[in-house]
């Protein structure tokens, strides 16, 4: 089937999409946007988090066809001329090691800060509990989120 959707502000289409394909697969393998990650492909790790019409979702759990006619924002769409403050904070605070979880954390953090510009530590932890990181022990991710909230 063919799907048409808006990704990071641009109209995009993909042909020959198999009905069983996830939005994650379509983004990564058909639309040349591999920034959303495939750590578990079962909705547990959050590395594939994108916004679907502004709402964060695990793109591995959304069928590509469900994105028909809708707006998707991926990590590739976060930065403008300069890095988004959340991206900048993750780089500066050492919140990135292997970085495979990072795109998902960035999307979840940006969503948190839009809803709650000044979150407490327990609020940060609860909001990011759906994103797994195996490298950092999360301390520097907390540092980055706190720093981003101040910008």
């Amino acid at each position, binding site marked *: 089937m063919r799907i048409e959707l808006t990704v990071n502000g641009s109209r995009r289409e993909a042909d020959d999409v*198999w009905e*069983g*394909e996830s939005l994650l697969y379509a983004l*990564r*393998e058909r639309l*040349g*946007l*591999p*920034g*959303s*990650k*495939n*750590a*578990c*492909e*079962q909705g*547990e*790790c959050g*590395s594939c988090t994108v916004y679907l019409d502004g709402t964060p979702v695990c793109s591995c759990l959304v069928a590509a066809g469900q994105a028909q006619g809708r707006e998707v924002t*991926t*990590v*590739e769409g*976060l*930065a403008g001329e300069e*890095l988004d403050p959340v*991206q*900048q904070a*993750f*780089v*500066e*605070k*050492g919140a*990135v*090691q*292997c*970085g*495979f*979880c*990072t*795109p998902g954390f*960035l999307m979840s953090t940006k969503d948190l800060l839009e809803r709650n510009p000044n979150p407490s530590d*327990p609020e940060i*932890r*609860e909001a*990011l*509990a*759906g*994103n*797994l*990181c*195996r*490298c*950092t*022990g*999360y*301390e*520097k*991710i*907390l*540092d980055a989120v706190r720093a981003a909230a101040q910008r």
Partner: protein
Amino acid sequence: MTSTETRSTATGAPTGAGRLGDSPLRPDGTLKVTGEFAYSSDLWHDDMVWGVTLRSPHPHARIRAIDVTEALRVPGVSAVLTAADVPGENAVGLEHLDTPALADGVVRYQGEPVALVAADHPETARRAAKRIAVDYEVLPAVTDPRRALDADAPLVHASREDNLVRAMKIRRGDPDPTAPVVVALDFEVGMQDQAFLGPESGLAVPDGDGGVDLYVATQWLHVDQGQVCRVLGLPPEQVRLTLAGVGGAFGGREDLSMHVHACLLALHTGKPVKMSYARDESFFGHVHRHPAWLRYEFGASEEGELIYAKADILFDGGAYASSTGAVVGNGGTLGLGPYRIPSVRVDARGVYTNNPPCGAMRGFGCVQAAFAHEALMDELADRVGVDRVEIRARNGMREGDHNITGQVIDSAAPVAELIRTVRDLPLPPEPEGERDIRELPGGVSNTTHGEGVVRGIGYAVTYKNVGFSEGFDDYSTARVRLEAVAGEPVATVHTAAAEVGQGLITIEQQICRTELGVEQVVVHPKDTSVGSGGSTSASRQTYVTGGAVKAACEAVRTSVLARAAELLQRSDLRLDGDKIVSGSGEVVAGLVEVLDEPVEETVEWRHRPTFPIDEETGQGNAHVQYAFSAHRAVVDVDTELGLVKVVALDTAQDVGRALNPDAVVGQIHGGSAQGMGLALMEEVVVQDGHVKNPSFTDYLIPTILDMPPMQVKVLEYADPHAPYGVRGVGEPPTISSGPAVAAAVRAATGKALRRVPIRPEHITF
């Protein structure tokens, strides 16, 4: 010595000019936050096809026949391969060539690769794989490692006499010691998974001339290359490897996964082949941390001073050896912890079973042992009435002591200082009043508001070898090039040492900046066109590849000054930043003025040699360096439901010299989290040889809600034998954090808890 206290809230923006001792931004950071960094699963080629693996459903079975006819009929399928299609020797392995690239006549564990399919869509390939008809004759399986050496145990490898991979003995001091105080225990450690987030993946591209280029996430390009060459029957010139972006490793990428398979399919189809495991396959696609059964006994004086120690350690190696031999070596030589012990008797064994293969994971044989020796040290402390911190300080190694293999510890061994340091760090406030449920056991499940919750504190110390041991030729290669680009001196550093997220590329840049006085340092892609960098494991890369880069920079500097001496006709020159100065300090030339031609030097660098230990006594200088750490854990336990919340996990570690202080702290944070995970939640559950939980739904790793704040105290006692005084950093935190958490849960509950991970029912029943 300097001491740096770094609290999580104190880490700040990048500091300094990016030289040693600074914490510059990592060069791949921006790419990683914009989604542009190319991990191995992101690779793509216009003409590529997808490869998938058919795996054994049985822990042990004979393959009577494989019929691929139906699979080949699926539209879109371009190849179906079995062992019969392997052109070279069908055998790989880190220590023993005991692992078929594709099962040949027999499968020895559930998940063993049996056949490969290439197709134009991964789902097509998966569907075709299901149509491969494999006729299995199920065989009796060895699934209890404690029975693996019984005379009537089935043989996992029919060509071997028994199921023993390696047995190690250590005998020191009085062979028949006695002591006024004797304590003993049995301990069991479950199977942990590395759970790196980036799945096993890569792209193999045929070169049209019989060779292949493989882009893959790995820990050691050259040891992969050798194994791939053997199976393909090709020389190294025709099998070139380049490191793709690595989404974490932690030991799980030291063995091959899809490397050979993608190359076989690529050479067979003539097309680029991408393979990328889903998470469930990843649980079958790499080795795990060895489960272990440990029996320990300490004999001590009435004052708690160790007189003797005995240990019997059994590691389940699973179906193939992987690095089991070296894990046994570590478990044996390091398995009594960082203590002075006059008389010692250790037996460590690793066995073959039909369970999942086990091999390298961060902490490598020391993690399992530390749970046992630290639990027993607490028991000894309580028995003799000595404080649990002080008994560790009293028995802890000091510089100049002999360890249990008779090796003199010839640099800092600050066990007493480390354990007292963590004791003296501020404790979290005592709970009072209404508490945030997110900070209680059970969290947002809202299972308690504080009722039934008891607090406990636990301590642990460890030591770990750095680098490869027991006589292994452990080296790294660095090529450094210095040239003028647009009027500026630019250095390019080229090693094959894998960056897996830990920050080696940042360290390589820092060393070049420091040694050559340049600002711009390009890190060449990691590939096999330069000599081996050795493995990114054993906490060794900053030490060994760092040593190689330092030596290559020194060689470049020597060449530059020789060239300058010739050009300027004087011999008293040295490099000061990007200036060439005379003996009196006068600037005689800019660096770029002598760089008409680039200067390039390649150096192979080795640390001090290590030696095999004596087979009968276990004595010998097995290791090149030791790294020490201590943890204090504070936990709240809901004693009614058996749920645990770690409230604080604080640590002190001697890192020799922190070349990049922020990266050091990042390693310590992450390592501590993995140790905590093993203590409380992480286990690959294996029943009768079958993995029951191959998913992140059922295999739990700590989330940001599970992790507590961590205070990290970094000590810097430079090792005079190591480049810049560095000491390996990555592994010790994974070793001492888990036993500290387990001790804290014991302290809270009063339960013996002789098995990890600790499950709720261990606490409530």
